[in-house]
């Protein structure tokens, strides 16, 4: 036995505990702990911005869980929509309010009890449904082939590659195109509505010809309200 083999043997022996760890489970535990811990911190903190930070941590750890499960598409989606998009908007809104008395939130005790009951009920339902799924109870079924997002994309345009041809024959219109369109039109309506509600309500200055015709003094142009001016000045950076 030469020196190299001896060294390697020693290395193996010295690090035996490390080799015995199931790393997949270890990382799952790590991410799950971060997600749960951060979620608890969201509830316990009373500073709005810290809450948002903890929420980001929690959602990010959930994305990590998705990546760990090989669901890269869902993980990226989680990062993009929840962590990236929604939370930026959340923080954006929080910053407009966080300078004043809203910076610390005091929850009335009644609300706490109510929220506790709600959360416990939700948890019970989730645990019950998770336990009732049969395949999840069998341990250690490894994923043989890394799943891809391709079946999802194909199903979106109406080709179900994940089904038997016979099934496709019997229900030809089973793609996701129609639900997708319905949801997107819904979202579009919501967006247009939001833009309509949030628009600056500016009255048009009447044309001179109308003023002459009616022989009335022109109605005063409405000054923007104080909040509007402030909101604008925050973006432009002046006017304080």
């Amino acid at each position, binding site marked *: 036995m030469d020196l190299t083999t001896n060294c390697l043997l020693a290395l193996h022996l010295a690090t035996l505990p*490390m080799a015995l760890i199931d790393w997949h489970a270890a990382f799952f535990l790590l991410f799950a702990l971060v997600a749960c811990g951060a979620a608890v911190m969201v509830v316990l903190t009373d500073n709005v911005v810290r809450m948002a930070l903890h929420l980001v941590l929690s959602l990010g750890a959930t994305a990590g869980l998705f990546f760990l499960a090989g669901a*890269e598409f869902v993980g990226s989606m989680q990062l993009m929509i929840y962590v990236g998009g929604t939370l*930026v908007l959340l923080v954006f809104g929080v*910053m407009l309010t966080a300078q004043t008395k809203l910076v610390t939130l005091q929850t009335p005790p009644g609300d706490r009890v109510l929220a506790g009951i709600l959360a416990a009920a939700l948890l019970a339902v989730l645990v019950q449904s998770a336990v009732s799924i049969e395949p999840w109870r069998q341990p250690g079924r490894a994923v043989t082939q890394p799943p891809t997002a391709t079946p999802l994309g194909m199903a979106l345009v109406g080709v179900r590659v994940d089904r038997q041809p016979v099934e496709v*024959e019997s229900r030809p219109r089973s*793609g996701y195109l129609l639900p997708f369109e319905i949801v997107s039109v819904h979202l579009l309506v919501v967006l247009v509505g939001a833009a309509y509600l949030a628009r600056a309500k500016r009255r048009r200055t009447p044309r001179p010809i109308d003023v002459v015709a009616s022989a009335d003094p022109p109605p005063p142009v409405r000054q923007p309200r104080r909040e509007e001016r402030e909101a604008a000045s925050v973006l432009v*950076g002046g006017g304080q």
Partner: protein
Amino acid sequence: MAEFLINTLGFPAWLAWSATAGVAAFLILNVIAGGALVFIWAERKIAARIQDRLGPTRTGGRFGWLQSLADGIKLLAKEDLMPDGADTLLFRLAPYVSFCASFCAFIAMPFAFDVVGQRLNVGVFFVIAVLGLEVFGVILAGYASASKWSLFGAMREAAQVVSYEVPLGMCVVVPVMLAGSMDLVTIGEKQAGWISNWYLFHDPFTFVIFWVYFTCAVASVNRAPFDLAEAESELVAGFHTEYSGLRWSFFFMAEYGSMFLVSGLAAVLFLGGWNGPIPIAELAGWSDGSAVTAPYAVRLLGCANLLAKATAGVLLMMWIRWTLPRLRIDQVMTTCLKYCTPIAAVMFAGVMLWQLFLPGGLVPGGRQGAISVREGWLEQAAEPPAEAVGVRRSVPQQLAGVAD
């Protein structure tokens, strides 16, 4: 490399994997940090030349090429200040959040054939999603500094980045559509061959949309003329007004890292990735353009190609920065909503129609058509499951079945 460590050297599996990951992370970290040093020096020289000056000339010999290193040492020696009203934890955390986001996006970034941290089948999407997280660090910095300049800067950044993600996403979808895959490695492989195979020259629409992508990328990494978040003529230094020393330099490393990343992404998506303008390796018979046959020299050549293209992109950004004046916030929003988004949408539709009606390009027999891209999807997706034995219809047949 991990397999080599396990099989040949007899390392324990966990050690081999962590060592491999460590080496990869070390290399990427060096690309970012070393790149930042070089780029800061280049930026000074380019700025100086554009403004008819000389720039740094003395530090480290003739061209002042040690200037960024000297700056780095100065930054290390600076006092680490924190404002009185600052939110201590968030103030300290913010630079690392920015830097980590920029760093993590490199995980899915391919440098050559299979020289990639982790090959993800949704690589494009992952990079865009993670890059979007960088803004979170900026927002935290702006809030935690307890300074109005920082807060203004962060607000502008948030508004800007959220808006520019829309046209950016639309531009990125075009190469994805052409390649039929979100995998960055696949997208790069499809552009192998002569320069005419690059998606930039695929059709007129992709040529236009590349420039829209570049504009949006400049805006999303917060560079001039879109650097509203740190507009020094109005906001002192914007979101990093209160930062000094090492924390400040983390913001800058994140910025240069993201610049390099979006340029590299542009190179992979539109400029042929690691394939040079002339397929030297294929002509010389060293490889046939795929990862399997490429020897290490060819991979090294690929890396050099990609790095050169990404560097060219960064230099172009610098040229833009020192040429154009900074936009106002309303002009930034107008550029995004009234110009970039509609142009991107129209070009997207144009590429779609082009793929439908002229799938082979103007030169007959030149290129892979849309049908074969779809067939490629089917082959990928429908590795028939074990229980599914039976006649599987081809995609056109299935599509026809859906249509009637």
